[in-house]
């Protein structure tokens, strides 16, 4: 405290030391602050500049991925197909269920080999070519059906009516093709057997066909009745299991 307490206590008389003391007590935090009048102008470190440069190079690389900027053709990817998973290598097209994959294969074979006579709707024409839709020989035992496709058919068909002679369709048919076309006909055109004739079963069918006593001749209803009234040997596959649509092999990782 300053010693000039003799002065009258007037409002406009400010004791500087006392005022300062009050400021420091009441606004101690504000009084600690200092007003800085200078602005620094230190040189920018070369490390900061080069780090920024590297970031800009990365940014340029990202832009570079965008292709030509305003060329309309490059604004979208035509026929874009998803790249295979990283580390997945040649994982190929997306897997489908076994039934779908076999049918997709079989549809192509049907179009190439069967369409001409049995028709695009598989109804035949009623006169020379029988219908495959709803036929008990198509829907029934798979070995019987396979023998007809592989060897052709002579004499009356399942309905009892005798159509013309059906020639063998085995030429150029691989086991995958046979499996596909059997599965397709049994599960399309209103047919709903629901099972899948696997490649393994189709292979067995080809062996059985080659070992017939009358190999090379079309089968007859009597022979089918006598020798082939059974399902093709081989392990059945769950129609809903995911397989590769090209190789028809089950996709292993999809069934943990």
């Amino acid at each position: 405290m300053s010693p000039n307490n003799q002065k009258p206590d007037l409002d406009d008389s400010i004791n500087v030391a006392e005022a300062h003391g009050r400021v420091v007590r009441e606004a101690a935090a504000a009084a600690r602050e200092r007003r800085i009048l200078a602005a620094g102008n230190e040189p920018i470190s070369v490390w900061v500049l080069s780090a920024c440069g590297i970031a800009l190079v990365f940014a340029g690389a990202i832009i570079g991925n965008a292709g030509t900027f305003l060329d309309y053709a490059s604004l979208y990817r035509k026929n874009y197909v998803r790249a295979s998973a990283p580390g997945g290598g040649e994982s190929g097209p997306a897997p489908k269920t076994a039934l779908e994959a076999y049918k997709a294969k079989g549809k192509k074979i049907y179009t190439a080999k069967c369409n001409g006579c049995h028709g695009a709707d598989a109804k035949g024409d009623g006169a020379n070519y029988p219908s495959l839709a709803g036929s008990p020989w198509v829907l029934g035992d798979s070995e019987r059906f396979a023998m007809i496709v592989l060897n052709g058919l002579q004499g009356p068909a399942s309905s009892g009516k005798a159509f013309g002679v059906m020639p063998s369709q085995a030429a150029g048919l691989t086991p995958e093709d046979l499996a596909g076309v059997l599965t397709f006909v049994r599960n399309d055109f209103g047919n709903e057997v629901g099972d899948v004739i696997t490649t393994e079963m189709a292979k067995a069918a080809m062996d059985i066909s080659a070992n017939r006593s009358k190999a090379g001749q079309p089968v007859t209803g009597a022979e089918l009745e006598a020798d082939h009234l059974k399902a093709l040997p081989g392990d059945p596959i769950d129609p809903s299991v995911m397989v590769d649509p090209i190789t028809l092999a089950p996709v292993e990782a999809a069934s943990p």
Partner: protein
Amino acid sequence: MSSALYNTTDEDVLLRAGIDRSLRHPVMFFLTSGAAWLAVSILLGVIASAKVHWPSLLAGCPFLTYGRVFPAHMNALIYGWGMQAAFAVILWLTARLTRKECTAVGTILTAGHIWNLGVTLGVVGILSGHGTGMPWMEFPVFAWPVLIFSYAAIMVWPFIQFRVRPEGHVYISQWYLLAAVIWFPWVYITANVFLHCLQGSPLMAAGVNAWFRSAMIFLFFTPVALGTAYYLAPKVTGRPVFSYTLAKLGFWTLAVIAPWAGMQKLTGAPIPYFLPYVGGAATAMLFVPAAAAGVNTLRTILSNKETLSSSPALRFTTAGMGSLILLGAAAVFLNLPGSTLPRTQFSLSGYGFDILALYGFFTLTMFGATYFIVPRVTRREWLSRRLIKTHFLFSVYGTIFVALVAIFGGLLQGGSQEDFTKPWATGAAKDAYPYALTITVSWALILFSNIFFFIHLTFMWLRLGRRSSHPTLLVFSHGGSPHGEEGDIDNVGPASAH
């Protein structure tokens, strides 16, 4: 330091004290209710994160399903805490920088209550299943006009103060704060009008939404935090800003680059093909403003290491600026098309990046500002050194764990998602499991410290702080008062604090 650097007079001190006093209630209202929202948000974050690795937790309660809790967590963090902390800091800093007392306290407080009402209704709306499903805009549609009008009623005042400021130099902090005040309505109104009022392509709507999220970080929270750091660093250390040229460079690069960023989240989506790449490149280029501001403030702070170790404000700011540099590096690292970018779009990585920005960078800087501002506006010193220390350690380590673990765990998780031959349960979910567990534990620790932060702050608002002329510093002393040298208690005698 030479005395020519400083100029402190009693008039200066009285002016500062007057400004601080005029803003006591707005600042304390926004900080305290913000801190309460922060605790709520982190609690929701703990629940949301726990559901990633423990899906049956609280499964019977429809209010707490993941699809509601997670958006409620993010929106409470952004609008409850982030925006309110920004209000407090912008109001106080602008008043200090323009050297004018605030004269609209009543309006600001009223608008602040309306803002809180809007946020409350919005969060309740999300939890009751009325969210919009647009990330960071999940509040039911009625909320956004409420928020933007109360924003206008609050943030028009710093703008007016700037208009009537005394002539003279405009400091870099003011640039950043004013930019944030103007950019937020632009970003918020654009996004909300496009998504709620106009009928556009839903695909572009997703793009607008992605841009909005990026713009909220880089056009609002970033400038607010940088304005704060540029004020605190020289103020607390007593040293001038390391390089003022670098500060301006940082501002203009941010202003030019940031609006382009954001659409990289839509890479691979059928929107115009160049947009995601422009977004990715712009986000990577944000390294430049981040590094400029980060290095500049850190060099300023490191010029006075003793103050750094003892000042809570400076410690938090330093942590925030460190996170900023990490954020800039992550912006480059996470946006490389063909390697990291596809892995960050739908995984924990995107969340990690957001948390690094919103918590590691923005929130830690706001904590720094809080520890600086509150003793000034309440004229009381912080009660407990130990609480501050706990808060600092838990926040910094917690953030590092949440953000970095989410970023790296998300990269693995995203890799498994990309490989479509891997089943979800044994691939992506299994990869994310340990990281999600770590995130839950870290959030729980952060929650613990933030509840004490909220209580500490409430005591300060009630003016139950220490009445002393000595600040609460993070110094270790053997014996004696845990707060260091006690200094002069109010009304005891003349001060000697200089």
